[in-house]
């Protein structure tokens, strides 16, 4: 009969908390957005599904062995755990807190207690640690993205790098907004959390996940969902801002045809970039290093099989694990927090400010240069490759059906990827010192 009780106590309904049920609905909603509405399905399908799995009560898929041990709260185990953590046992919540605050040695001791009592890390917890906590998965995806990126339009018109720089203003303005909310007492974001929220404005999924996993892993679920959702919403978010900040004449500006870029320039560019990173900004080395490696493999022409694998088998495998790992942070106790609402609001503000900054920078550059720039391509500086460049093209065609801006917009678009990787490096470096 003990076995029957075990089975019943293990059943989902017995344990289901309203938060978990709500988060399962959120997971189903993300799947709906991904499948029916086409919101970044490659990421949101595994994220949404991972969110459902993470909220299955009693399964503990997103929990570490110690958290699982504390969840079931057997008295003997609790006593041993408390001893390992060097606290006196009052209730599971307090043990959990002690565990999260523990130094490495106490952490190891607690894991040993959990192991001795046959508690194991949940599947999603393992995926999270291997894929994200290590930083590996976002970096490998960045390598694959590098292998898919053509820097030709950027090399043909390097000035567009300034547009990619300006659009990063969305990141830092949002950081300021987040700390402002904290100062006003509306929210309670630390500077690290503010930095992680700001990176949503980089409009670049792997960069956002990388930074967040370093600075504020507790917010990873909300930030990743916001980043990918808003990237999917770029065709709705950007056009009103672009039109509000430009005159019809500006939108009709025709740009001069791009020059042809030689293969050797394309080969040299990632090497030049990584050497500059080495000399000037080591904190951006992991992200930009892997990005440049991917791009070099693409362009050098002698390692096609590696480039092909980086763009296909490897990035696909990593994407599945990355998505499930992000989904593990959609566990109710982590996601259902007032901060999530703040993140969703600040994230869209970041996109809007970045878009505006890119457009305004293009207008500013037009004042100082005789080579005309259509300000609509400025909005592509937020990255969101290649969606933002397509939006620039589409809005441009509305103003002048003969004006094709797509290739011109690809320059600031990939510049935005570099820009937000630089911003990520700066923030990780500076915030660690705060």
């Amino acid at each position, binding site marked *: 009969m003990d076995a029957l009780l075990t089975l019943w106590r293990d059943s989902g309904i017995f344990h289901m908390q309203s938060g978990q049920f709500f988060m399962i609905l959120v997971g189903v909603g993300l799947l709906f957005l991904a499948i029916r509405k086409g919101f970044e399905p490659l990421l949101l399908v595994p994220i949404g599904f991972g969110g459902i799995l993470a909220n299955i009560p009693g399964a503990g898929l997103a929990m570490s062995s110690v958290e699982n041990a504390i969840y079931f709260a057997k008295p003997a185990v609790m006593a041993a755990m408390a001893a390992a953590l060097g606290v006196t046992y009052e209730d599971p919540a307090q043990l959990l807190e002690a565990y999260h605050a523990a130094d490495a040695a106490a952490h190891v001791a607690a894991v040993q207690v959990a192991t001795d009592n046959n508690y194991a890390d949940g599947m999603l917890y393992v995926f999270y640690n291997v894929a994200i906590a290590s930083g590996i998965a976002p970096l490998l995806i960045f390598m694959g993205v590098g292998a*898919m990126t053509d820097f030709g339009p950027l090399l043909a018109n390097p*000035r567009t790098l300034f547009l990619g720089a300006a659009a990063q203003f969305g990141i830092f303005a949002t950081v300021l907004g987040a700390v402002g909310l904290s100062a006003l007492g509306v929210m309670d974001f630390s500077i690290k959390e503010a930095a992680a929220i700001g990176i949503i404005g980089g409009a670049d999924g792997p960069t956002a996940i990388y930074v967040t996993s370093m600075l504020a892993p507790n917010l990873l679920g909300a930030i990743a969902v916001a980043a990918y959702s808003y990237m999917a919403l770029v065709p709705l978010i950007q056009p009103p801002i672009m039109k509000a900040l430009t005159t019809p004449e500006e939108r009709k500006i025709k740009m001069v045809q791009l020059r*042809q870029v*030689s293969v050797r*320039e394309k080969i040299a560019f990632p090497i030049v970039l990584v050497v500059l990173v080495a000399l000037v900004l080591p904190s951006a080395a992991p992200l930009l290093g892997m990005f440049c490696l991917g791009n070099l493999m693409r362009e050098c022409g002698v390692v096609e099989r590696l480039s092909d694998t980086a763009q296909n088998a490897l990035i696909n495998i990593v994407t599945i694990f990355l998505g499930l790992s992000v989904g593990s942070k959609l566990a109710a106790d982590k996601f259902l927090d007032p901060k999530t609402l703040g993140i969703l609001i600040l994230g869209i503000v970041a996109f809007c400010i970045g878009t505006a900054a890119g457009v305004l920078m293009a207008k500013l550059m037009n004042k100082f240069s005789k080579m005309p720039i259509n300000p609509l391509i400025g909005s592509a500086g937020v990255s969101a490759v290649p969606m933002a460049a397509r939006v620039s093209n589409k809005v441009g065609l509305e103003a002048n059906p003969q004006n094709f801006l797509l290739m011109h917009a690809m320059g600031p678009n990939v510049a935005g990827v*570099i*820009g937000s990787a630089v911003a990520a490096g700066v923030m990780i470096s500076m915030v660690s010192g705060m």
Partner: protein
Amino acid sequence: MILNFEEFPEIWFHMRRQPHPAGQYFYSGDRQMQESIVQQGVDLMLFGMGTVFVFLTILVIATVIMSGLVGRFFPEAEKPAAPVAVAPGQVDARTRAIIKAAIDKHRAG
């Protein structure tokens, strides 16, 4: 200082936890922290945007120099890579071919 919080933990605890009419302005400690986080945010913005612009400016310069050097010292005998510029009428068909990989795939990131 006479009022040593370390020696009067209960008072200290009381002061921190009890709300006070003067609110956030009363406790210099809290106030400092708030100033501090805003200040940190401003620092982050100024130096962050500064670094982004400085780095990308250097990159623009380096790219121009690099393109010049490659063009001068390593001109390609063979025909160049796929042209980047596009004629208006062909855009939709051509660009789909050119950025086809990127379109579906960067989304994976």
